[in-house]
């Protein structure tokens, strides 16, 4: 259950039996395809989810940057993001384990909506915890979860964001652990979650590797993915990790600054790989945004899906091993990346994803001849934020938005 010095199972004793049960189920069903679990998962993620997703050459970006830019189109997955790979895998695993109820936490709402869809598809009752502030910023996602039949429970503790929602979901799990499976939304949490979520998300790189070889006759020089918790990141990297010639770039949210304000307990970024320090949070040892005492600080990003103070332990390890390069771009570059992909390629990316395109723009000459970028999600959920954040700054490539001054309604 470790990745070098990272990982582990830092959870209350009450949860340990469930963690052990899950570890056993993970090994039997996911690793050894017992009862044909993997076959059923692959069939459902194909028919229900829409896999394989295409690998598309980005014609105009390739021309602009004089680099072959290929887009892995996870935005086309059912629900609009890579999140379903994991949610469907875990909800299906819960049915194999005989669990009767699903809980999940969500920040931007993407993992919550993916879990709600998977739960509806597999006829499993589902409750999603979501910070009150996030609920107010992501109401369409809240509605999607409810319309899929899930309960959405507002978390009012702390500042009402992802961090608090995770803690609250852990409390529910500690209370109802015997019949309930907690669908963690990223490659974080106690073992076996980081490995298991990675395995479900690794379909991305399994397909992308085959597709890029088909298309170009060889491996890419680099693979770029945005990194918050890191599930699309590890999913995009996993099958390339052993290909030493392929550079793996994890683009974190630089927010408005990389510095931490210790007095306020706030990091105006979510760059835990780039700037974080080792610590223990939410069940695992990993890199964290924390103050000198070990108190977790509030992270920030224009993209609520990247807005998390931790990161998957495997990524932390791969960074220490120099296999993954952590980089970051700030909010401004992400907003510009959002507009650029929308206008030049006709794909409106999630603000999370937009960070990868911000990085491409700033460092395209360092990515080699062929680069694969994971389009982790679509931006429909972010329209309101994009209007607001674009209006706040001087974005050179933004369309005239004056007709939207009142927001979307």
């Amino acid at each position, binding site marked *: 259950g470790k990745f070098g010095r990272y990982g582990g199972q830092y959870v209350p004793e009450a949860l340990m039996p469930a963690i052990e049960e899950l570890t056993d189920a993970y090994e039997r069903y996911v690793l050894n395809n017992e009862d044909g679990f993997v076959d059923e998962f692959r069939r459902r993620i194909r028919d229900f989810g829409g896999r394989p997703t295409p690998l598309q050459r980005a014609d105009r970006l390739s021309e602009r940057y004089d680099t072959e830019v290929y887009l892995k189109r996870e935005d086309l997955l059912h629900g609009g993001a890579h999140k379903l790979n994991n949610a469907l895998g875990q909800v299906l695993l819960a049915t194999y384990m005989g669990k009767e109820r699903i809980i999940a936490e969500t920040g931007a709402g993407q993992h919550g909506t993916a879990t709600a869809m998977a739960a509806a598809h597999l006829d499993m009752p589902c409750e999603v915890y979501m910070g009150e502030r996030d609920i107010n910023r992501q109401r369409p996602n809240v509605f999607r979860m409810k319309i899929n039949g899930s309960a959405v429970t507002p978390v009012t503790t702390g500042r009402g964001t992802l961090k608090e929602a995770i803690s609250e979901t852990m409390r529910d799990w500690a209370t109802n652990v015997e019949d309930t499976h907690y669908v963690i939304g990223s490659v974080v949490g106690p073992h076996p979650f980081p490995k298991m979520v990675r395995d479900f998300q690794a379909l991305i790189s399994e397909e992308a590797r085959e597709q890029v070889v088909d298309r170009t006759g060889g491996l890419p020089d680099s693979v770029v993915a945005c990194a918050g918790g890191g599930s699309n990141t590890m999913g995009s990297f996993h099958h390339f990790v052993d290909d030493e010639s392929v550079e793996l770039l994890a683009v974190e949210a630089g927010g408005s600054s990389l510095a931490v304000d210790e007095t306020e307990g706030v990091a105006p970024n979510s760059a835990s790989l780039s700037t974080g320090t080792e610590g223990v*949070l939410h069940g695992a040892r990993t890199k964290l945004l*924390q103050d000198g005492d*070990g108190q977790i600080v509030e992270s920030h990003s224009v993209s609520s899906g990247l807005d998390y103070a931790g990161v998957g332990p495997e990524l932390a390890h791969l960074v220490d091993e120099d296999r993954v390069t952590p980089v970051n771009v700030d909010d401004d570059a992400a907003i510009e990346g959002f507009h650029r992909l929308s206008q030049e390629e006709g794909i409106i990316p999630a603000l999370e994803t937009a960070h990868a395109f911000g990085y491409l723009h700033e460092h395209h000459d360092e990515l080699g001849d062929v680069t694969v970028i994971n389009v982790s999600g679509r931006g429909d959920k972010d329209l309101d934020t994009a209007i607001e954040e674009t209006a706040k700054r001087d974005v050179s490539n933004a369309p005239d938005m004056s007709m939207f001054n009142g927001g979307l309604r």
Partner: protein
Amino acid sequence: MSDAGGSDPLAAAFADGPAFVPYLAVGDPDYESSLAYVEALAEGGADVIELGLPFSEPIAEGPTIQNAVVRALEAGMTPTRFFEFVADLDVDVPLVCMTYYNLIYQFGSEQGPRPFVERAASVGISGFVVPDLPAEEAGALREACDEFGLDLVSIVAPTTGEDRLEKLVAVSSGYIYVQARLGVTGASSSVSDRTTESLARLEGVDLPKAVGFGISSGEQAATVVEAGADGVIVGSALVDIVAEGHESNEPTEATADRLESKARELKEGALEGYGRRTPTPEGTSD
């Protein structure tokens, strides 16, 4: 299990009948009041006091203690201040530090638990309860505790089966924190059947068993002790009193008085339950 043996103050606290083990979040709602409150618990009959060092992500706590943690952090509580607090305390009972592992891990110039344990020992802490540290991850902390002669109290949950029990007892010393029911900390009105089951499962374990989670009255304390507990741990019911006092701007002394009297009720309840458990032969020593 620790070798601290007979000189272990925690073991000693359980030696003469049932122990009353109250919990408060240190620094809630401020440093000075908190000192008075902890001292009031000692006055009220505490045998051991669990001092909560507030962590920003208290995943094992219910709303009552979460709010206390927020109040304490906002009032400026830090690990360093916590140690000052312990040094400032004027009480004569063993103290246990209850906190999350990241604070222990980060303290001092080198990473790992040793600097934190060393400092805790130096201010008079007798042991630790770390809710997010299962036996599997407890090695380094156990080692540091042994080095400085401190106890590491393990939590046994209702879900803990025979297989895990052994592993768990192997890293525990001081006492066993028996979690009375599933879920998070918080006062509740009944004592679960699962408490009895857990105590039964632990019968062969040679450490005192203190039951916590949901105990809020003298009568509940009595029931738990009657069922075989060597002690009762009470947190949320006491933190509630602190919160009420804070919200109504009650003078610190008045809140402290209420805490002391609640402590007395709980301690007496524990004794009462103990009395019920060991029936005195009729008619002796009138």
